[in-house]
């Protein structure tokens, strides 16, 4: 991730306590009482406690956590659908708690669009009008937004359903209408609360691509709640993990998987399909020592002493693997290409899942090269085995 991006949303010391007398329960929470204690003692539920985080412009920020850990509550603070019990929420430096009603409305119209966990569709509007709702609210004419809405409906796979009402749709179809509504507004920031949870794998991965496209091409900032670790790892530039309303860890997908901060996050990341989550980058051994030459004598002196095999390059192009034994068996003038073993190269960005079959098919390390074909390192089967062992 690009660390130089500017901060877009900043949250400081955010508390949310549900109940009639939240203000008075706050000190107890600050004093460190647990969620169960507070619930049993006062009947109040802690939604969030002491949340500090910042979201950068253009990133996909994923929020994860147990059911009931406060994800929806947190995301609903970003556009101030609920007011915090305590704390600050700044968007582009402005404290949105202090926006007057009018500006808050403008802010919601232009800056943010939201996909709701329970969809939040309007039962009295047909699908098309639901999708165009955000634009309608801004005062655009139906004729203006209609093509756009139809277009988004088709993108989410609901072409032809324009005139149906939400109650006539299946759960996943309703969710997609909610998705299309959010995408149709052109807002800079997308708040997505389990936006893909009711989708089947095919449509879901299409939608994920769509989202990545949007982020890459239009620099949208996306805050995404999901329970699907694979999805989180696939989409997220950074991932935040919540537990009982507290922020436990914020980090890159790799950090979460490989450097969990506590047992909770470890348990959480345990089940992840690492082969799909991790790239070669994370396990490769940096090593640029290659053999350059055509015949045995060219390389005999530079063959690394501590290795059984090495990668042979010629004119900066990878040729294959040469074992120590082969070299030992060769005459000085024997051409290397006769004996070289064709072990395929991999790239640093390759997912492990693509690399595993390659590694299984050979006894040798896999060479890691960059775009230009320069050797950057190698993938050792044992390291791969390590990272894949649960």
């Amino acid at each position, binding site marked *: 991730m690009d660390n130089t991006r500017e901060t877009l949303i900043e949250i400081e010391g955010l508390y949310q306590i549900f109940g009639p007398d939240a203000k008075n329960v706050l000190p107890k929470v600050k004093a460190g009482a647990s969620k169960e204690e507070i619930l049993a003692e006062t009947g109040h539920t802690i939604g969030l406690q002491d949340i500090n985080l910042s979201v950068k412009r253009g990133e996909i920020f994923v929020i994860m956590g147990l059911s009931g850990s406060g994800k929806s509550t947190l995301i609903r603070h970003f556009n101030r659908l609920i007011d915090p019990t305590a704390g600050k929420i700044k968007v582009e430096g402005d404290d949105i708690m202090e926006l007057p009603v009018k500006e808050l409305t403008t802010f*919601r119209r232009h800056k943010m*669009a939201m996909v709701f966990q329970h969809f*939040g569709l309007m039962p009295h509007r047909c699908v098309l009008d639901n999708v165009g709702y955000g634009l309608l609210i801004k005062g655009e004419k139906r004729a203006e937004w209609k093509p756009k809405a139809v277009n988004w409906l088709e993108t989410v796979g609901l072409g032809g359903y324009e005139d149906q009402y939400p109650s006539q749709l299946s759960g996943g179809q309703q969710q997609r209408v909610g998705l299309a509504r959010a995408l149709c507004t052109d807002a800079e920031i997308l708040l997505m609360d389990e936006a893909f949870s009711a989708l089947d794998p095919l449509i879901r991965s299409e939608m994920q691509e769509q989202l990545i496209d949007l982020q890459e091409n239009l620099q949208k900032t996306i805050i995404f709640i999901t329970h699907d670790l694979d999805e989180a790892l696939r989409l997220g530039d950074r991932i935040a993990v919540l537990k009982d309303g507290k922020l436990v860890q914020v980090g890159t997908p790799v950090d979460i998987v490989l450097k969990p901060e506590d047992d909770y996050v470890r348990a959480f990341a345990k089940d992840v399909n690492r082969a799909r989550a991790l790239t070669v980058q994370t396990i490769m051994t940096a090593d640029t020592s290659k053999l350059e030459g055509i015949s045995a004598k060219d390389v005999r002196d530079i063959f690394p002493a501590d290795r059984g095999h090495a990668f042979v390059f010629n004119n900066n192009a990878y040729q294959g693997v040469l074992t120590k034994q082969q070299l030992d068996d060769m005459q000085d003038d024997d051409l290397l290409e006769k004996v070289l073993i064709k072990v395929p190269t991999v790239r640093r960005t390759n997912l492990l899942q693509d690399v595993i079959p390659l590694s299984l098919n050979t006894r040798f390390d896999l060479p890691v090269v960059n775009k230009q074909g320069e050797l950057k390192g190698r993938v050792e089967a044992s390291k791969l085995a390590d990272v894949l062992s649960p």
Partner: protein
Amino acid sequence: MIDSSWLTEFPDMSRRELLAIRQSLDSAYRTFSRDYGESIENFFDPLLYFLVWFENLLIETPWWLVLAAIVGLVYAATRSWKLCSGVLAAFLAIGYFGMWEDTMRTLSIITVCTILSICIGIPIGILMARSDRAKSIITPMLDIMQTMPAFVYLIPVVMLLGIGRIPGVIAVVIYAIPPVIRLTNLGIRLVNQETLEAATAYGATPTQRLFGVQIPLAMPTIMAGINQTIMMALAMVVVASMIGVKGLGQPVLKSITNQYFTLGLLNGLAIVALAIIFDRVSQSYAKRAQKHLEGTENG
């Protein structure tokens, strides 16, 4: 009687005190009506002129033209030939039994009252739904309007404005307006919070929320309020006729005192027919605007 009588008899105010209060209040009101009656009356003049004009229009236009206009309006509002033919049949029967003119008079005043009630009532209901304070102030007023016997305020009104259409309209509106206010309030308060939140999240202003979400979703309940308001308005036809409003109420009153049951029944039925027509037309108009309710269960 001995002093412990309060055990069995309520220790009420002495007759003299009561008398003093009564007399001073009564005469205070008399003075008030003498001083301000004129200007209050003038205030209502435009409404009066409109009422008179509308009534004359309905009566003086040939009956078949009026009937055609009514049926046309009904069709425009409901797009239902069934309803139109019902309306036609009802009006033909009314005419046949010789109640055309009275019916037209009642129609004119009730139309005005119903429209007034709805146009005033819905905004008040909305206000009530938005603010608990407003609700706590308005509710007791509605209670008073619905249960204070019409006569209690009618006679003062008559002393202020004389008998005739204006006090009639006031009485009818006072009595008929509470249901639509109450049910508008209830309907809006019962609107699903999630849907409303979605609207808020997309930057809907309070007005957009109101007209785009709350009112459409509260429609079935609001329509129940309108239905009750129509019923109440027509129920007041007879009371209105007691302070000189012409129309179907007078023959009803007449028939009572003379025990002409059939006459009373016929005129009563004409009132009922008007009520049903008003109601069905407004309901089916509203239903046309809420197609979404046709979709049934959810997958």
